[in-house]
C-alpha cells in the first residue's frame, strides 16, 4: 500500500518554467538570518549515544510536525484559496496532493487545502500503532525510515510554501526568528539522517546551503 503510494508521489512534484525574480530575494536576505539563540542545533540533531535510531526519528517527527502545524496556523488568515489557489513554492514548483489511499491520482488543490490534507494524513500516520508504536517494547516496522522520509518530504513543502509565499507576512508578524530556527533545525535533522532527496529541496536550495555549508 505505502509502496504504491510512494510510486504515485513522483507525480505530485512538477517543475514549472520561468526563473524567480531577484528583487525580493535581496530584501528577504536581511531577515533570513534571524534565529532564536537556541543553543547548538547541530548537537541537538545528533543521535544520543546508545539511543535507538528509530525512537529518535519518531520523537523528532512528532516535534517537527507540531512546529510546522503551529507556524502555518499563524498564516491561515492570509493563506487562503483566493490568495494561494495552488500549493506553490515560488514560480517554479507546484505540489499536488495524493496519499495513495483515498486520493490515488494527484489532484490540484489550493495551498490551505493541501496543508489540511497533509496534516490530517501525517496525524493518521502518527496514530497508526503499527508505524509509530506507543506501547513499551512494541517494535517499529522494517520500513519505518521510509515512512519518516515521506513525512519529512511533505513537511518540507509547507516550509517551502511559507518562505516563498508568506515570508514578508512572517516578518511583519515578527516571527522570522522562530520560523528560521525551526527550519534550520528541520534541515540539519534531515541532513543528519538523509531524510529528503536533494532534488526535493531545490525550492529553497540557496537557503539550505547557507544552513548546511558550515557543517
Amino acid at each position: 500500500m505505502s509502496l504504491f503510494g510512494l510510486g504515485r508521489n513522483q507525480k505530485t512534484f512538477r517543475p514549472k518554467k520561468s526563473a524567480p525574480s531577484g528583487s525580493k530575494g535581496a530584501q528577504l536576505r536581511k531577515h533570513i538570518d534571524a534565529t532564536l539563540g537556541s543553543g547548538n542545533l547541530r548537537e541537538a540533531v545528533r543521535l544520543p549515544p546508545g539511543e535507538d535510531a528509530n525512537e529518535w526519528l519518531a520523537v523528532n517527527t512528532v516535534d517537527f510536525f507540531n512546529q510546522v502545524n503551529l507556524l502555518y496556523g499563524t498564516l491561515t488568515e492570509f493563506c487562503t484559496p483566493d490568495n494561494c489557489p495552488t500549493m506553490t513554492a515560488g514560480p517554479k514548483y507546484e505540489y499536488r496532493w495524493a496519499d495513495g489511499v483515498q486520493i490515488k491520482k494527484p489532484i490540484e488543490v489550493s495551498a490551505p487545502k493541501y496543508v489540511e490534507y497533509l496534516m490530517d494524513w501525517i496525524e493518521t500516520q502518527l496514530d497508526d500503532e503499527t508505524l509509530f508504536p506507543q506501547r513499551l517494547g512494541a517494535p517499529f516496522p522494517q520500513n519505518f525510515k521510509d515512512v519518516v522520509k515521506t513525512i519529512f518530504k511533505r513537511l518540507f513543502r509547507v516550509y517551502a510554501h511559507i518562505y516563498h509565499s508568506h515570508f514578508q507576512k512572517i516578518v511583519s508578524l515578527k516571527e522570522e526568528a522562530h520560523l528560521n530556527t525551526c527550519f534550520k533545525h528541520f534541515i540539519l535533522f534531515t541532513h543528519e539522517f538523509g531524510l529528503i532527496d536533494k532534488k526535493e529541496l531545490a525550492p529553497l536550495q540557496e537557503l539550505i546551503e547557507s544552513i548546511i555549508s558550515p557543517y
Partner: protein
Amino acid sequence: MENQEEDEVVLAKVTSEVEDNFEDEGLVSNSTLEKVAAAKKYIENHYNRRMRHIQQRKERRWVLEQKIASLDVSEKEQLELLEDLQRKETEYTRLMRNRLCVDDFDLLSIIGRGAFGEVRLCREKKTGNIYAMKKLKKSEMLSRGQVEHVRAERNLLAEVASDCIVKLYYSFQDPEYLYLIMEYLSGGDVMTLLMREETLTETVARFYIAQSVLAIESIHKHNYVHRDIKPDNLLLDKYGHMKLSDFGLCKPLDCRNISAMNVNEPLNDENINESIDGDENCSIGRRGRRWKSPLEQLQHWQINRRKLAYSTVGTPDYIAPEVLLKKGYGVECDWWSLGAIMYEMLVGYPPFYSDDPVTTCRKIVSWRTHLVFPEGARLTPEARDLICRLLCDSEHRLGSHGAGAEQIKAHTWFKDVEWEKLYEMDAAFKPVVNGELDTQNFMKFDEVECPKPARTGSGPSWKVSITPQNINFVGYTYRNFDAVRGSRHSLDIKGSVSPPRSSTDSTRSDSAIDYTKLSTGGDGSQQ
C-alpha cells in the same frame, strides 16, 4: 499593560514594514496575533526544553559513569548498569511522544478541592504507580485571569528538580481541563498537622520552617514568586519531610471581595482608623481585640479552619500586605508568609486572624497595630524576634533587597540547624501512613459530580492545536524522566537510602538518587 505595549509594538512594526516596500494588505486580526503569540511561546519553550533535555541526559550518563568508577563492581555489572540507563533513556524518548489522557489513570480518592478543580489520588494503569492528579478547569482559569499562573506553575515544576518541591511527572490537557500528575505525598500537609496538634514545639516548628526556607529559596533561585504560601501548600511525605506545592491555584482568594474592598473602601489610613474605632466600640478585651482570650480565639480558629479546608475560597491570613494592596511586590512577600506560618505554629492561630476575610486583610495592611503576641504564648525571644523581622514592612524584612535566604538562615533561632542534612535526617514529626493508597492524613471530600465520560468526541489529538479554547494553553504537555523509573519497590529503596548530597537544588544530586538505586539493584544481597 505589558500586553498592550506589545500590541502597540506589533502594530508599529506592521506600519514600518509597509514602508519597507513589502506589499502588505493592511492590519492583521486579533485572532492571528493571538496565534502568533502562542506559536512563538511554544517554539521558544520547546527549544529551551530541548536544550535542557540534552544537558540533563548527558549529566545522567556522566553521573552514572562517575558512580561506576567509584564502585567496586565487576565489569559485567558495570555494563548492566549502563545498559539499564540506556533502556530507561529509550523508554523516556518514547514516552516523550506518548499521547497522555485521563483514561490512562484510574481515579481514586479526592484529597483536595478548589475553585478551579480538584486533586485526586490516581493510579497509572500501565505501571501501577500512584500519583496525585490535579485537574484544573480551563474556563474557570480563563475567567479568573489565572492563565499565566498556571503556566508558571507548570514551568516551575517542570524546571526545578529539588527535594523541597513536589515532583511533577506529567502534564496534559483535554478540551475542558488541564491535568498535572504529581508526586503523591501521603503524610498530609502542615495544615492538617496543625489541626491535630494545635501548636508545635519550637523544635518541630524550627524543622519545618527551616525546610520551608530551603523550598522558598529553591523557587526564588528560579525567579519565581509564590505569593500564596500557606500551611496547606506545605505537603508532608510519608517520612514527614516537607515539600512545597500548589502554587497559588487550588484555593484562590475570592477576588471579588478584595476588588470590592479596594474600589469602595480604599485601604488608606483614614478608613483603617475608622474601622479600628468601630472595633473598640464593640471590644470587650484589651487592645481593641474582639476576642475575650487567646483560648477563645484559638478555639474559634480551629472551628473556622475546618470550614475553610472544605471551602473553595482561600484565606488571606498568610498573604503579604504589599500583595493585598496590589502594589509591586517581590520575592520578599514569600518570607512574610513564612513568618505568618511560624506565628501560627507557635501561637496556635494566624497572627491577623479574624472571622471574615476583609477584616483580616485590614489587619494585615495595618500590621503595625495588629501584630501582637498573646500574653500566655511561650516563645523564646529568638523566635519572637524572627517572627517580627518577617512580619514587617518589605523594606526591612529579612530576605529583602537581594539578601535572600542566607539572611534568614543566619538568624539565631536557626543556630543549631544543619541545613545540608535537613532532608537526610529523620523528620521532626512522623506521620502515620498505612500503605501507599492511604489518605488518612487528608481531609475527606465527597464526590460532587457523577463521573462524566473523560473524552468528548474523538481521542486526544497529536496536533498542538490553536483554537479559541486552547490558545492560552499551548505547550502544556510535559513528561518527567523520573516517570520512567517509578515502581513501588524502587520508591521504598529510595526512602531507605540516604546518598550524600551537595545541594538540595541540584539535578546532579537528584540523579545520584537514581544511581544509588541502580547500584543497590546490582547488589542482589540488598534486595
